[in-house]
């Protein structure tokens, strides 16, 4: 019997537009499954156009350059579908990897967890809507 593969990411919908993808294990750094990780998320993003996708790294210790390349692919798919990609629960070690590679300029990255990031996004959206109303 073929071995049943465990999903690498758990998806949860939080309200109308926010979706949280929690990376389930640090084994995602494994060169064997990094493409699969990217494909799972890209497929989900294509099924949910204009989503705000928060990628939760709370269980991840470090990222290899292969994962960084896959994250760039995911970002491209999400943006092309009219959505936004945010990375949260990023440890100091992982943030350093983004800084060294200058990829901190390509992603919206926050060190705190999902709930804080959802609040931050909602607050920013509310402010943007108020500003838009004032300018009309």
């Amino acid at each position, binding site marked *: 019997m073929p071995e049943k593969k465990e999903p690498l990411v758990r998806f949860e919908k939080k309200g109308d537009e926010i979706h949280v993808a929690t990376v389930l294990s640090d084994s995602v750094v494994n060169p064997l499954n990094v493409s699969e990780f990217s494909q799972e998320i890209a497929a989900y993003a294509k099924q949910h156009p204009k989503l705000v996708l928060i990628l939760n790294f709370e269980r991840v210790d470090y990222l290899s350059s292969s994962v960084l390349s896959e994250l760039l692919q995911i970002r491209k798919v999400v943006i092309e579908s009219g959505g936004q990609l945010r990375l949260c629960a990023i440890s100091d070690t992982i943030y350093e990897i983004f800084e*060294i*590679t200058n990829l901190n300029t390509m992603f919206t990255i926050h060190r705190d967890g999902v709930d804080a990031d959802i609040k931050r996004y909602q607050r920013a959206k509310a402010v943007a809507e108020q500003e838009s109303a004032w300018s009309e």
Partner: protein
Amino acid sequence: MANEIYSRTIASSFEALMPVLDDALEAMRANGCIPPGKESQTRLCLEEALVNAVRHGNHCEGDRHIHVEVLSDADRCTIKVCDEGTGFCPDAIQLPAPDTPGGRGICLIRHFMDEVRFDRENKCFVMAFKRMTA
């Protein structure tokens, strides 16, 4: 004189490199080769070097081989990853533009390791941590 604390020759595949990654790190840990607080970075560097050997050195050809060696002496801990490719100059590799996929592994290794070079004679990528002195 450096002590060889780990040595293994494996088939050039991603499947084969996973146990080597774990075993080499365990040997390094047991011999005090990993600087304090640098466990993740050491694993990252070793993984990047092994993946480069499979992908770029041996062009994912499964009948080729990779040799991994870890040496320890009073001053440093040295990791050698040898493949059957033509070699490259690590210093010549520049960080790619942010929106370009690939090409960041060597830059990460250069950042975290104290010494990075390619030994052309033995076709080995060599990286080393200097030991902390009191």
